[in-house]
C-alpha cells in the first residue's frame, strides 16, 4: 500500500475548503496522508523540511493565498532544483485565463476549478484519486 501511497500537500488557507478536501477523502475512502499548508511560504518549508514524504509527492495548490500566492509558489518551486519536478495540481476558484496560462507555463499537472457543491467536490476528488493512482510519478 505504501508503495502506491501518495504524499499529498494541500496548500489552502480556507478552512472550509480544507474540510471539503478532508470530507471528500473520507467519502471516497482515500487514506492518503494529507498535510496542509496555509500559504506558499509554509508549503515550501514543509516540502524542504521533509515533513512531506519525499517520494510520490502531489501538491494540491490554491492560487489565492496570503504571503506567497500559488503562482509565486510555483515559480519558487520550479526554481528549486530539489523540488522542480514536484507534481502540482491547481485547485482554485479562479476561472481567469491569465491564471490558467501562468499555471500551465509553470508545468502544473492539472488546473481544477473548485466545485460549488460538496457533491461535485466529492466526485472531483474521486476522479483525481483514480487519476493519480494511474500516473507514474517521480
Amino acid at each position, binding site marked *: 500500500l505504501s508503495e502506491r501511497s501518495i504524499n499529498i500537500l494541500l496548500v489552502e488557507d*480556507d478552512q*472550509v*475548503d480544507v*474540510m*471539503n478536501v478532508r*470530507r471528500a477523502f473520507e467519502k471516497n475512502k482515500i487514506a492518503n496522508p494529507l498535510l496542509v499548508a496555509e500559504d506558499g511560504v509554509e508549503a515550501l518549508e514543509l516540502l524542504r523540511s521533509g515533513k512531506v514524504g519525499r517520494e510520490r509527492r502531489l501538491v494540491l495548490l490554491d492560487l*489565492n493565498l496570503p504571503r506567497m500566492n500559488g503562482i509565486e509558489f510555483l515559480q519558487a518551486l520550479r526554481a528549486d532544483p530539489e523540488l522542480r519536478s514536484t507534481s502540482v495540481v491547481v485547485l*482554485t*476558484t*479562479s*476561472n*481567469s485565463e491569465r491564471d490558467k496560462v501562468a499555471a500551465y507555463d509553470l508545468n502544473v499537472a492539472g488546473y481544477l476549478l*473548485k466545485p*460549488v*457543491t*460538496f*457533491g461535485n*467536490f466529492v466526485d472531483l476528488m474521486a476522479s483525481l484519486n483514480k487519476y493519480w493512482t494511474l500516473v507514474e510519478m517521480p
Partner: protein
Amino acid sequence: MPSAAQSAHPSPVPPPVEANLTALYGAMMQAPLLLCVLHGPQHVFTFANPRYQELFGGRELVGRSLLEMFPELEAAGIRAMLDGVLRSGESFVGTEVQVDLDFAGRGQVERRYYDFVYHPMKQGEETTGILVIATETTEAVLARRTAAEQQARRTAQLQRLAEAAVAINSAGDEEAVVREAVVQAQALLGGTVSHREGAAPDTQGGLVAPLRSADGRALGALHLQARSGEAPSAEEQSILVQLAQQASVALQNARLLREAQEREAQQARRTHHALLAADVGAALTRTTDLREMLQHCAQALVARLDASFARVWTVNHAEAVLELQASAGLYTHIDGGHARVPVGSFKIGRIAASGKPHLTNDVQHDPQVGDREWAKREGMVSFAGYPLTLDGQVIGVMALFAKKPLPDDALQALGAVADAVALGVGRKRNDEALRRSEQTLKTLSDNATLGLLLMDARQHCTFMNPAAEEILGLTFEDVASRDQPLHDLIHHTRPDGTPYPMAECPIDRALPARNQEQGEDLFVRPDGSFYPVSFSASPILNAGVPVGTVIEFRDITVQKRAEAERERLIRALERTNAELDQFAYVASHDLKAPLRGIASLAQWVEEDAGPRLGDQGREQLGLLRGRVHRMEALIDGILDYSRAGRVRHKSETVDVGALVGEAVDLLAPGPGTRVNIAAGLPVLEAERVPLQQVFMNLLSNALKHAAREGAVVGVGHRPVGGGMHHFSVRDNGPGIAPEYHEKIWNIFQTLKPRDRVEGTGIGLSVVKKIVESRGGRAWVESRPGEGATFHFTWPHRVTEELS
C-alpha cells in the same frame, strides 16, 4: 437887210441890178430851199417860195404876219431870234432847231427840225426885213435820234445782263444758282420762266435754253413760256441763251466750290476723327476705372463729333439690363430715367438685343426715337447708337445725339470707336476679373491658417503667406535677403544636433522626384528651437518641366500635445480596465469562496445532523443552498457583463451553424423541446467566445421561457446590407408586453420572480453589450401570448477599428 445875229458878215456883193434881181428871183422861186422874206417888226411875209409855202399847206403867206399866224412861235423863241436879227442887223444861223407847229393848219401840231439862216435885209443902215433860208433836217435829226436811243437801250440791256450774270454767279449753291437764273430771266424777259430738269425739255412753243456742265452734260434747261399770240423775239432768245450760259458757268463754279468746301470739311472731319481715335485710345489705355474710361470716351465723342451729348451703357447680363456708365455733353448725370434700360426695350435696349447699330439723320421723324417732342424742342437732328460687341456678344451700347446730320465718315468713325471701346471694356472686365481673382487669392493666402510657401527650382523661397511667416518666425524679406535654399533656413538641423542635409529632405525631394510628398517633420526656428509640422510638398510642372514647389504646412505642436494626451488617457484607461479586470477576478474569487463554504457547511450540517434535523430544517437548508447558487450566478453574471464589451478575442473563422449546435448541446434542452436551427447559417470571421455567449444567453433565455408543453425554439438568419448578418432566436413562450421591450435589456431586470424562473437579469444586458460593442444592434419583437423573437446583427468581418 439886217444880217443874222450869229455868224454875220458883210455882204461882198454890191446891190444887184434889176436883171440880176429878176434872175435871182426866178432862182429863189425854184430853189429846193425854203425861202421867204419877212418884213418889219411884225415879220410880215413879203416873199415865200413855193417850197416854203408848201410847208404850210400851200396857204397864201405874203402879206400875213408870221407871228399872227403862229403865235406859239413866240414861246418857242423864234420871235426872239427874228427880233434879234432886226435889232442887230446881223445874220443868225440856227441848226436843227426844233419847231412844233400846226404847219398845215389842220389842227395837228407837227415837230420838225430845220437848219436855217436869218439874213438881215437893209435899206440904208436900217434893217427892215429878214431873208430866211432854211432846209428841213427833220429826217436826219429823227434818224440820228433813233440810232442814239437804240444804242442806249442796247447798253442798258447789256448792263442788265451783266448784273444778272453777277447775281447768278454770286447766288451760292447750285440750287440757288438755278433759282436766281429763273428770277433774272423772268426779270429780263418779263414772261414766265421756269427751270426744267432733264436733257430735252419739251418747248411747247416757248423758248428753251439748255444748262450744261463744263464737260457738256445737260443739267436741265431754262424755259420761257410762249406768250399768247406773240412769237418770242431773237433778242429774247439771245437773252435766254446768255442767261443759260451764265447759269451753266455759275453752276459749274458752285459745284467746284461745293466740292472744294466738302473736301475741306471732310479733311477737317478726318482730323477730328483722328483726334477722336486718339482721345479714345488714351482713355482706354490710361484710365483704370471702367466708368472713368467710358466718361472720357463719351466726352471725346461730344468734342470730336460735334455731338450734343453722348452716353455709354454696359450690359448686366445677369439682370438683362443696360447700366448707364457715362454721359457727356448736354447731360452728364448717370442716374435717372436712362440709368437702367432693359435689354430689348427702347432704342438703346433694342440695339443691345439686336446687336445692330441704329442711325438716323432725321431724329424728329424717326419712330424709333421715343421722345420726338424733346428732339424737336432741343433741335436734335441725328442719332447714332452702336452696340459694343465683343466676341459676338453685346456688352454695351454707345449712343449720341447731334444737332447736325452725321456724315457717313462720322458714322464709320463712330463704328470704329465702338469696336475700340468694346475691346477696352472687355479688357477692363478681364483686368477686373484678374484683379478680383488676385484679391481672392490674396484674401485666401492672407487669412489661411495653413502656412503656404512657394519655392523655385533652386529650392529658394519665392512666396510666403502671413501664416507661414508666423509659423516659421521669419518674414519673406528675411528669407529673400538670404539668397539661400529655404531648407538651410528652417530645416538645417535635426533635434539631436546633427545636420539635416537637403538631399535627405522629403520636401526638397518633391520637385526632382515629380511626386507629391506628405508627412511630418521638425523645423527649426531662428532661435534654434524645434517644432513639429505636418507638410505637403507638391511639385509644379510647367509643360512637364519642374519649375517649383508648393508647400502647405501646419505647426502641429498643439496637435502633437493632444495626441500625447490621448495616448496618456488611453494608457490610463487601459490601466483602469486592468484594475477593473483584477477587481472582477478578485471579487469573483473572494465572493465565491465564502459562498462555497456556506454551501458545503449547509450540506455537512444536513449530513451530520441527519434524522435529528426534521423536515423543516432540511427544507430551510435546501433554500439556503439555492440562494447560494443564485448568488454564485449573480457573481458570474457581473463578471460576464464587465468583460462583455471590454475583453477582445482574436477573430477566427466561425461556422455559426456549428456554434449554435454546440450551444444547444451544452444547454441540454429537456425532452419534448424542439429546437429548429435554420439551414445555411453563415461562416463568419468573428470572435468565437462573445458570439457563442450571445447565442448561449439568448437560447437559454428562450428555453427557459418556452412553453412547458411542446416547447419550440427557432434560430433564424438572413444577410443584411452593410456587411452585417441578422440573427434571430424565437420561442413560443408567453411573450413580453411592449412596455417591457426596452426594460428587459437593463442589467438585473427580470420579469418573473426568481423563485419561479431562475434568472439573474444579466443575460440580455450582456447580449446587448457584446452586440453593440461589435457594431451590431439587439432588439425584441413580441406580443403577449405570441412568444418572443430576439434579434441581433453581427458584422460579417471584424473591422480593424473594432478588433
